[in-house]
């Protein structure tokens, strides 16, 4: 063993990343199809932020009486009541929709009072009510912001690299979003405002991976003017392999604390982020770069050297 451990990594690797690309393309296509299928059949388990309705997280003195709670809600005439255990045995989560009414926020208080009477010692740790109009607007607003952010990132990549790099990144990003949403819908993980933040984090991480990959590719394209594009991609990916592994590992380590200690509220969204980091790393190599390979790059144009290296003084 050498110290520090990084010296144990082989000095040079010669993996043929590109030769696996057709196989990976098949896998990616299958996964995207499966995600769309799961999305279409299972749908998203929309949280009340997006669907509207009422959510109550409660604690009871003894083990939470899930059955009686469900029955009590049923008697109060609410729709789609879901009652689940939540984290600890004395905690439960109630989710329901109220009968259509002008001011159902007022009814939330009434339901709380009734539950408090029927289940002495009940504590409400979290109560949320979202009206149907607001929920739709939140969803649209979130999507709009996401769309605008993606378009502008594409613009910046086009400006700094070439247009096909931008398309490679956006197609890869679409792949990442599809797979993450597929995982969310397949495992029925709740999709709420924090999940949007998780999705944004995944997109952010994935974009970072793509730009780092493109940067190395651009540099090698300038260095080796005659080398075939596929070989340059292989070379670039081998060169940055150790960085990819280390950064991926640290990103997962950063999430590990939250995954195990964050409690049941944040766990679903940490899981989504963990999946997203793996997917984002994969798609940089096997979606973004193959798109560029298929499209080809413009190698004749003599580009101006971008960004003078910062602080290149001796």
């Amino acid at each position: 063993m050498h110290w520090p451990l990084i010296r144990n990594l082989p000095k040079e690797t010669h993996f043929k990343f590109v030769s696996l690309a057709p196989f990976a393309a098949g896998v990616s296509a299958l996964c995207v199809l499966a995600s769309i299928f799961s999305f279409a059949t299972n749908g998203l388990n929309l949280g009340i932020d997006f669907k509207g309705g009422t959510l109550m997280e409660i604690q009871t003195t003894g083990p939470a009486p899930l059955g009686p709670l469900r029955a009590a809600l049923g008697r109060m005439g609410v729709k789609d009541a879901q009652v689940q255990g939540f984290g600890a045995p004395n905690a439960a989560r109630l989710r329901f929709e109220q009968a259509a009414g002008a001011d159902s926020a007022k009814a939330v208080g009434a339901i709380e009072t009734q539950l408090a009477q029927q289940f002495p010692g009940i504590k409400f740790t979290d109560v949320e009510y979202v009206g149907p109009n607001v929920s739709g607007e939140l969803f649209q607003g979130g999507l709009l912001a996401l769309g605008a952010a993606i378009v502008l990132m594409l613009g910046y990549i086009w400006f700094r690299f070439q247009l096909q790099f931008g398309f490679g990144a956006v197609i890869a990003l679409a792949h990442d979003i599809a797979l993450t949403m597929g995982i969310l819908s397949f495992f029925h993980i709740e999709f709420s405002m924090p999940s949007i933040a998780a999705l944004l984090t995944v997109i952010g991480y994935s974009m970072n991976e793509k730009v780092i990959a493109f940067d190395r590719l651009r540099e090698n394209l300038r260095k080796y003017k005659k080398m075939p594009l596929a070989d340059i991609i292989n070379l670039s990916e081998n060169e940055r392999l150790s960085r990819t592994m280390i950064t991926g590992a640290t990103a997962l380590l950063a999430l590990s604390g939250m995954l195990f200690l964050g409690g049941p509220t944040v766990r679903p969204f940490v899981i989504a982020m963990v999946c997203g980091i793996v997917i984002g790393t994969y798609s940089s190599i096997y979606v973004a770069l193959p798109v560029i390979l298929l499209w080809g790059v413009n190698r004749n144009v003599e580009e101006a050297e971008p960004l003078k290296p910062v602080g290149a003084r001796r």
Partner: protein
Amino acid sequence: MLNLPRWRVILCVAAIVFGIVFTLPNVLPANVAAGLPGWVPHQRLNLGLDLQGGSLLLLEVDTQALKAERLANITEDVQRTLHDQKVAFTSPVQVNGEISLRITDPTQIQAARDALQKLAQPLANGGGRDISVQTAPDQHLLVSLSDQAVTADTAHAVQQSIEIIRRRIDALGTREPSIAPQGTNRIVVEAPGESDPERLKSVIGQTAKLTFQLVDESVTPQEVAQGRPIPPESVVIPSQDALSPTYLVKRRATVSGEMLTNAAMSFNSQTGQPVVVIRFNGQGSRRWGDATSQNVGKRFAIVLDNKVLSAPVIREAILGGSCEISGNFTTESANDLAVLLNAGALPAPLKFVQQTTVGAELGADSVKAGALSGIIALALIGTFMVLAYGIVFGGFAIVGLLSNMTMILGAMSLTGATLTLPGLAGLILTIAMAVDANVLIFERIRDEERAGRKPLMAIETGFSRASVSIMDANITMLIAALILFAFGAGPVKGFAWTLSIGVLTSVFAALFLTRLFVALWYRSNRSKSLPI
């Protein structure tokens, strides 16, 4: 590389000091922080409701009700104007939000139209006039309210409502609630630490429009129920007193809540029941005195939000300008009503469209879990970096990361940013990217040394190559973060703000701090080979 300009060193030291000084208030126990002199920064990070516990209410101004009321007022104006002009017409009706009326004499249509057009007021925001008058077939005139006028009314109502809600909540003594407009017709009320929003809701949700209306005793409510026509100047209103389920009252209010100067809870001298005593202003006193002296022996309905509280018989003229309202109050409800009346009536009913209440315990648990996971994450990353890159370079990464964290927390405390659960996700992404920047630099330096360069050259080239990637990656991220900040709603905004600050500090940490550390280290030992 080794030539370190003084400004760079000063900047780095200043940034680290800044981070520590502004982060400290968050870490110090409250009693220590309180003992510090006044010039020491004491802003703490704002915790979002999801982390702190508290209630959030999102209210919507009822635009339809606002428009209906405005149309009713316009209808009255139209009738009065035409009466003054001696134009005969059939009773105006509201159709699709327009007032339609038929002028009996066709030769008067133009005159009537000109007279009505004078009612139109220019809009404050410069976009034309609030109402327009058009001719329609069969001697009809259509008076319509422009959309801009409704928008302006709504904006005004939102402003007024915020003012009134603030006065009401202040009277309740709830801890520093924040009340702010959202969009065109919504108001967000955030009350940190308030875990029982029901009282808050009952205080905010009531319009508190108080009127005194004469009871119309020409027709009894029973006769109305049997189908007898209601006189046009009267209206049936539900009641909450024990005497009658409904009352027929005159439409015109004799005195209304705007004319009072003060309301207070008190007890009735005979029954001992809680009551609300109100005092009228000059105009109110005069009207109240006139009305009571003219109607001795009749009933007066005291109407709150279109519901009769009580309808006492007037025994004698009340000239002192005060009045006692009874209506099955408890001490608390009488007190609340007094608070509401003092704060004034809302210009339009408010609807609750969203409500979130997070218990203080859950909030505290989230903070504890968040802090613990953060510490564990940092410890794991630190160990990993030392294992991978050794004490020297791994240590640089750790110190860089810690300074970065203090800079982010310091900047967030300084700007009064709110840390939410989604914001924590942004923080994690920032950590990942900050570590990535260091990894990029170290890997580049290794590449260059492997390619046969001397340590100093390897460090130099490594930094300049890596900085291109770091800048590109972080600018892309900053663009996305700023867009999300501009367009996103609540939680997305919190995420975007944390991320924006994080991107700036991690670029600084990588390109300035790490560079400074490496340069100082190489200057002091000039080793022949790099320990990575």
